[in-house]
């Protein structure tokens, strides 16, 4: 926003009127700025402050008295030979795999369903609403339902796989051991894909129908129309959608916590739960905060690189 160059006003009253007029937008912005500070910036700065303190059980009543830690908490979190650093690194890789798979599958399911729902047919509205149910359910309700279904002896999943389909001789575990990763992934995809469906459906409304008609006249098949019209037209929508899905899932706490309780199985130990464990189970809020700050920096970096890359490609495409 460049300041418009204005000649010095001759009349003070007119001058004041200009200030008032120029100031009004800022005044209107003020509540939003204050709330932004209150809700986001202040807690974030508090977290950064905490990450430089030895904030353990002895000081949680009086944070100010906690001794300064310097970079200790960071060194400690990044010391991959120690128990905590090693666990953090391991949960980082698990979280990466989990996020990539969740975002990929959710996007695929959401886009696929949205494209299939594009042409009107009887019951389309009902089906669309039905697809959105997982998104509308509270996170806890959804995850606890999956927890019941994944239980070994009494869960629906094993009843289906073992008793009805006879796919396994002995009932597999879903909430402990290696399968817990897949249980987590399934629950997360189930919760996330309706959002992708919703956003892509909205994006599809903006694609002009004549594009498809022209393509049909040129003899393009369904697959060609999807590749040459639908996907390029959805580019900007997908850019934001994938980013938001990535950030949500990388930070997801509700799903693993509800599914596995306070101590997740090592194979499904997401980084947010790892940070929670460090803060609340081990009562070390300083190093928990340091891990949060590291996570924040990592996600900022990914976001910046992602936006740079996608924008550059967008420009070269245009």
């Amino acid at each position, binding site marked *: 926003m460049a300041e418009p160059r204005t000649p010095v006003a001759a009349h003070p009253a007119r001058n004041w009127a200009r200030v008032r007029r120029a100031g009004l937008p800022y005044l209107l912005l003020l509540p939003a700025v204050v709330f*932004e500070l209150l809700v*986001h*910036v202040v*807690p*974030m700065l*508090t*977290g950064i402050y905490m990450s430089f303190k030895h904030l*353990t*059980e*002895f000081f*949680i*009543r009086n944070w100010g008295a906690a001794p300064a830690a310097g970079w200790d908490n960071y060194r*400690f979190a990044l010391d991959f030979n*120690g*128990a*905590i650093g090693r666990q953090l690194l391991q949960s980082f890789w698990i979280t990466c795999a989990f996020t990539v798979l969740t975002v990929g599958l959710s996007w695929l399911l959401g886009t696929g369903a949205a494209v299939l729902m594009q042409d009107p047919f009887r019951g389309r509205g009902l089906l669309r609403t039905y697809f959105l149910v997982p998104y509308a359910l509270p996170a806890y309700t959804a995850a606890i339902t999956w927890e019941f279904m994944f*239980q*070994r*002896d009494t869960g629906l999943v094993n009843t289906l796989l073992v008793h009805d389909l006879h796919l396994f001789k002995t*009932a597999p*575990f879903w*909430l*402990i*051991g*290696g399968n817990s990763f897949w249980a987590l992934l399934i629950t997360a995809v189930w919760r996330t894909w309706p959002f992708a469906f919703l956003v892509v459906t909205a994006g599809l409304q903006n694609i002009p129908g004549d594009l498809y008609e022209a393509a049909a006249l040129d003899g393009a098949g369904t697959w060609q129309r999807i590749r040459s019209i639908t996907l390029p037209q959805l580019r900007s929508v997908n850019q934001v959608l994938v*980013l*938001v899905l990535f*950030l*949500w899932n990388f*930070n997801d*706490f509700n799903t693993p916590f509800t599914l596995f*309780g*306070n*101590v997740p*199985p090592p194979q499904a130990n997401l980084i*947010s739960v790892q*940070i*929670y*464990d*460090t*803060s*609340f*189970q*081990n*009562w*070390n*809020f300083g*190093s928990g905060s340091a891990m*949060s*700050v590291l*996570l*924040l920096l990592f*996600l*900022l970096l990914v*976001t*910046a690189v992602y*936006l*740079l890359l996608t*924008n550059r490609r967008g*420009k070269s495409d245009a």
Partner: protein
Amino acid sequence: MRASRPALLTLAVATALLASACSSSGGSGSGSGGGSGAGTTLTYWASDQGGSIAQDVKVLTPELNAFTKATGIKVKLEVIGWNDLLNRILAATSSGQGPDLVNIGNTWSASLQATGAFLPISDDVMKQIDGTGRFLPGALAATGAPGQPPVGVPIYSMSYALYYNKAMFQAAGIAQPPTTWDEFVADGKKLTKSGQWGVSVEGAQTPENAHHAFTFSKQQGGSFYDSSGKPTFDTPQNVAGIKQYVDFMAADKIANPSDAEYSNGTEAVKDFATGKAAMLLWQSADATLAQYGMQPSQYGVAPVPFNAAQPSGPSHVDSIVAGINLSVFANTKNKDAALKFMKFMVSKQTQTDLNKAYSSLPSVSDAYTDPAFQTDTVKTLQSVLSTTAAPMPAVATESQFETVIGTALKNLFADAAGGKPVTDQSVAAQLDQAQQQLQAGG
């Protein structure tokens, strides 16, 4: 740079999203008005003793009404499940916004004492609540680190015991409950058959796991802390004790592998009550068993077995000193009213009523005159508590200890359930990792 405006905007939105994700801080509490005596409202966080929160509300409400009637002080009750209680206390401590009184698991006493969150019970306070000389010594010892004024008073006392299904024992031709672990395993094998297991364990519940790890390693002569309070997890005795417990599932095959995912603190009890397991190692299970429909006549209660028939010395331990303490938050604005409530809770009548309802033991000696506490079950538990129960380590890192050791056992149970071998090495590796985590916390 015009083209990057939307990008910058997205970045700003993204930052905001991240910030909200990173700045996690739980905290809830309710302030309460000043003044003391009639008209005051106290906030009281009770622990879940009755097997369900609704059950606790049902048990406590008449008592609280009696207190309000006698003093004019109202009590706002909130019953908090075991999985949340410690976090809620921590959040209340760090924010300064908490209840006036809270129930704590007595094993957390030293940890919470270190935070300074609770009002120390000085001799004066003890007189004020009419408690001097009335408490059982063992229960009173578990209210803080030695040499410091306690930070709470015991209200419910408990000890571990072996619960066994009488009909199943009879059907398997077992006349007496086992007194050694060899007998226990042999009986367990006899009792394990289609649809029925020898013993049920709560394999993914961290505090439960930690209590058993403590008792089993004590019996091997082990200890998780040395005399100076330094952690010594990875010792041969601790490994042997923990392996012995996990082996019920891993090697002896007398526990259902499904137990490895039991985490909410009631599933093992439910399996025992519904006839899926013949034995259970638990503390004060009666109220919960009754909830699942098991009559007291259907089960017997015996002391937890030992390694040898009659051990002596420091390994003669078959339970932790279990129990619930009542503490006053140090920054309460209603100290006088809170202490009046504490006095009410440790009075003979309230102790009798509540411990009867929860099938726990009174923590004051004068309440034992009630016939409800003269039964065989109570006598068994009481004798364990007064002779062979040992308090969990009274160190500031005790609550972390419960979590890291409980997690180690949870991982070992998961290995056992998944068919992976549980060896001395794998137990030692878990203990080593647990100790590193604990030291990292301090």
